[in-house]
């Protein structure tokens, strides 16, 4: 469960996220859409406790991310933008570190790592330094890190960016498989991804929610039933309106 209330973030004169409110329930896979710079990543950074909001609050399973940070972060798996990882480590060492931080040890750590490695299909590269891996594998290391402790809430910033079509398919299958009892938020530029795995589509533009409905309802807005057309209509009209 993620409860976001009136979340606002300003960077100097620019308001990146403006008074954003959202509630995401277990079982939901929320697709977070919007043009570059719309505030998707900034929102995710605030929800996961990396950035402090200027106003408003975010709660993860009832724990406030600002006042009860550690408890909230325990419930949370997060894949930051660009899937950062310690390049000199191998996925095995890296996941061992994550397991330690997540206070998993012994058999529990081993089982959790195995599950994450299988899910992210990392088996073949476990002992290569992360720096030497392809973009797709690095993304999957980040994904394995995020799901290692089987969190109740998953926040994934562009989880399929840089993957080839087969890998995209596999990752989407993984996310769909976990969706039943988890609260999942993914940001993406790929509208087909929203149709493929999301139960709810939220488009934000200039830090505000423009649309919040099911992918099917979103597609129905256009005569052709194509999501990208709707997306273009909604976000460009808004930009033009703001500029005027």
């Amino acid at each position, binding site marked *: 469960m993620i409860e976001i209330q009136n979340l606002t973030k300003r960077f100097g004169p620019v308001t990146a996220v403006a008074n954003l409110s959202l509630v995401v329930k277990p079982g939901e896979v929320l697709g977070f859409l919007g043009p570059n710079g719309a505030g998707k990543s900034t929102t995710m950074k605030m929800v996961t406790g990396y*950035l*402090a909001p200027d106003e408003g609050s975010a709660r993860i399973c009832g724990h406030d991310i600002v006042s009860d940070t550690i408890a909230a972060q*325990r419930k949370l798996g997060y894949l930051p933008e660009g899937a*950062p*990882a*310690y390049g*000199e480590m191998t996925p095995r060492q890296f996941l061992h*570190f*994550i397991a330690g931080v997540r206070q998993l040890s012994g058999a529990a750590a081993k089982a959790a790592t195995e599950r994450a490695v299988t899910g992210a299909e990392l088996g073949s590269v476990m002992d290569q330094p992360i720096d030497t891996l392809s973009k797709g594998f690095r993304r999957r290391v980040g994904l394995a890190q995020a799901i290692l402790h089987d969190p109740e809430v998953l926040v994934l910033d562009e989880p399929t960016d840089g993957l080839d079509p087969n890998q995209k398919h596999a990752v989407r299958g993984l996310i769909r498989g976990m969706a039943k009892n988890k609260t999942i938020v993914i940001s993406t530029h790929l509208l087909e991804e929203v149709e493929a795995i999301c139960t709810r589509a939220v488009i934000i533009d200039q830090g505000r929610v423009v649309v919040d409905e099911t992918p099917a309802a979103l597609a129905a807005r256009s005569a052709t039933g194509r999501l990208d057309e709707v997306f273009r209509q909604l976000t460009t009209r808004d930009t033009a309106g703001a500029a005027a």
Partner: protein
Amino acid sequence: MSMLGPVFAREFKSYFATPLAFVFIVIFLFAMGAFTFYLGHFYDNGVADLTVFFGYHPWLYLFLVPALAMRLWAEERRSGTMELLLTLPVPLWATVLGKFLAAWAFAGLALILTFPIWVTVNYLGNPDNGVILASYIGSFLMAGAYLSIGACISAATSNQVIAFIVSVVVCFLLTISGAPLVLDAFRGWAPLTLTEAISSFSFLTHFAAITGGVIDLRDVIFFLSLIGLFLTANMLIVDLRKSG
């Protein structure tokens, strides 16, 4: 406290994942030897003690310790792992302390590897090993103080070169704060108590007191409280950066 372990272990191992550990230790040992034997005329002094050896420690630390500390936070910021690290359920104090202790342990390892000089001096004569032990402890404490300054400055930038240069300058000023170069800038306008306070920050004075063979609690407290002060500042800087 259990959170400290994984952070410490990862940081400590990261020194050895690249040639950094090897290069640092070789240069450290080589420089220690060169300074002691050539500049310090260790043999010509005809005295079986390590005063000359320890006398060069502050000056070597001045350049080598900031080199060790500069990557601590700047590297995390540059590579994006900062976002990962700060969204894991680890209290900030544990992250700051774990990273610092890892660097300090590494510096301690380099210091321990200077033991051949201790063997040499014991072979040549009958030095006061109590004084030598005290000096080693003092040197280790001083390295920690330099490190905490470097760590704090590293947290303020994503540029390692800037972190290095600023750290060297700050460490230099603290090292010689009892010398006229620093004090003359304050004499004449600042109250005497301030001038005296500044002069009491001199690393050289405190270190010389310990290498004299007396571990005065005040000197130990000086270095430890300096470490505490800069690590607290380190925490505040990381936390401040959160509000973007």
